[in-house]
């Protein structure tokens, strides 16, 4: 089921400073990831990934995803350490029509040598806050046995008083 993206995440996806990574799997399960600077979110809350090359591994993997209903993952990280992971379903490849043309023209205006193979529409199925601070706090609370003991020691050892 499609989930909506929080305003904070939308803002991060719109930020030029954010790092965006798209992770896919190939037809035989081989993992692959690319930096995806041209990943955006549209008004309906869907992710749009602009794939520049028809012969790329990512393009092939996205075809495999849409054909065999395999999820993809998007990781968005900002300079302050905020990191989101989005699990998504590849819903549609735009290869012609108004959306494709708009992105093609925009891309060519920014980089005249660029090409665009497809605009892939990805529906977010699950969003999680993967920021280190968030995960660390959760682990400390929910999995207390995972922590190294030296991190629990007193600066000055001594007798514990009730």
């Amino acid at each position, binding site marked *: 089921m499609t989930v909506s993206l929080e305003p904070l995440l939308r803002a991060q996806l719109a930020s030029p400073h954010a790092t965006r990574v798209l992770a896919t799997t190939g*037809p035989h399960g081989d993992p692959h990831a690319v930096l995806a600077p041209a990943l955006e979110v549209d008004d309906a809350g869907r992710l749009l990934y602009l794939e520049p*090359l*028809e*012969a*790329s*591994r990512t*393009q*092939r993997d996205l*075809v*495999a995803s*849409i*054909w*065999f209903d395999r999820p993809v993952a998007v990781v968005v990280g900002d300079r302050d350490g905020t990191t989101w992971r989005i699990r998504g379903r590849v*819903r*549609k*490849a*735009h*290869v*012609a*029509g*108004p959306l*494709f*043309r708009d992105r*093609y*023209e925009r891309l*060519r205006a920014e980089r005249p040598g660029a090409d*665009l193979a*497809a605009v892939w529409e990805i529906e977010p199925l699950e969003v999680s806050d993967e920021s280190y601070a968030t995960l660390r706090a959760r682990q400390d609370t929910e999995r207390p046995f995972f922590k190294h003991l030296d991190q629990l020691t007193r600066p000055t050892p001594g007798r514990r008083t009730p």
Partner: protein
Amino acid sequence: MKARPVELSLDEVCAKHPEVPRVVVIKTDVQRRGVFYTAGALERLDPERHQTTGTHIFGARDGRNAARPESLLLRDGSSIVTTPTPLEQEPYVVDFVDGRLALVDGGGPIEEVEYWPRPDFYGKATRSGLPMRLVASARPQRLNVFPYRHCHFWNDDEGCLFCDIVPQLRRGKDDLGVPARLDPEDVRETIAEALKEPGRFVGICLTAGSNTRGKAPFDDEVDYYVEILRAIGASFEPRRFPSQLIGTAFTEAQLERLHRETGLMSYTADIEVLDERLFGWICPGKARWIGYREWKRRLVAAAGIFGRGRVNTGIVAGVELAQPHGFAREDDALDSVLSEAEGLAAEGVSTVFIVWSPRPASALGDQRNASLDYYVRLAKGLHGLRVKYRLPIEFDDYRHCGNHPDTDLSRLSGVLP
């Protein structure tokens, strides 16, 4: 037309071939059974935004030339090139369901579809006053030019038995005003205009009926293709441009001329049916003027000129089962077709198929095509041959044609290292 026998259903075929994507199986079945547009679906057709039926050289299964959606785009970016089909023949239905166009079967939507977008040049005319939409037509990513709409095999009543090109030529002329022969200048202007649309096209396909005339047979056909290809080439900076010519099987001299004097990058000569005996029955004109073995020999010669992976042949899949002379069993037909296709693949020539769509104005118009399972097995087989012999098929893939389920499967191959 006879009712369909009991065959494996769509779900059963998908379960039998899990490595073939469901959307490709659906596409194949839609080509096999045709489509019917509901009033709700047709209400969403906007001629200002969508492409309506244009300069087809082949007719529809319901025998009408009315303005309807040209064809359909699928979610994976591929197309279904299909024909409107009467409801009594049990086609898929295209309807507007829950705010989206969808293919409907068995009472429910099974896949979302879109109409093809209309290209910018459709609203323009050439300096001679000819509407450009009658000079070239567009698929989502390909430009089609059908410069000559007569096939001379029909002059001696030797047209291919599945084909309705000449009756369609008459309809196209009467109903739409499509000229039988295009002026190269109209083509030059139209292509130049079409290429102004950013990001729309990745290839140009040129095809026409066979023309036996000339000093050597088919020289006139080659002369005209050279003229048209030069007119097209005038728009391009590089000498060669992504293009496909679907023509008759030409001699080495004719092929070398096409390669030398134009920017053509790939070549197709459709053998239609991969069986010598059936070729003689189904394609009498091709059989008499060239012959089955010579057709194949010329294809191999073409691969030597245009290069491996730049030459292929098309078959009208299912017509090998047409009666009274076709194969009685699908298994036998499949074995024979794949064996012949392998012989060509080993020599650098690909085979691609289209699903036979029996059209009422063709000699075999009252027969039915093959089972869905047959077409899926054929798609796997032909794709497997390209993998085995390392034959690329980019010039006839989902972007450059969209009408071959077997070449859709190549989308998972061919990644740059």
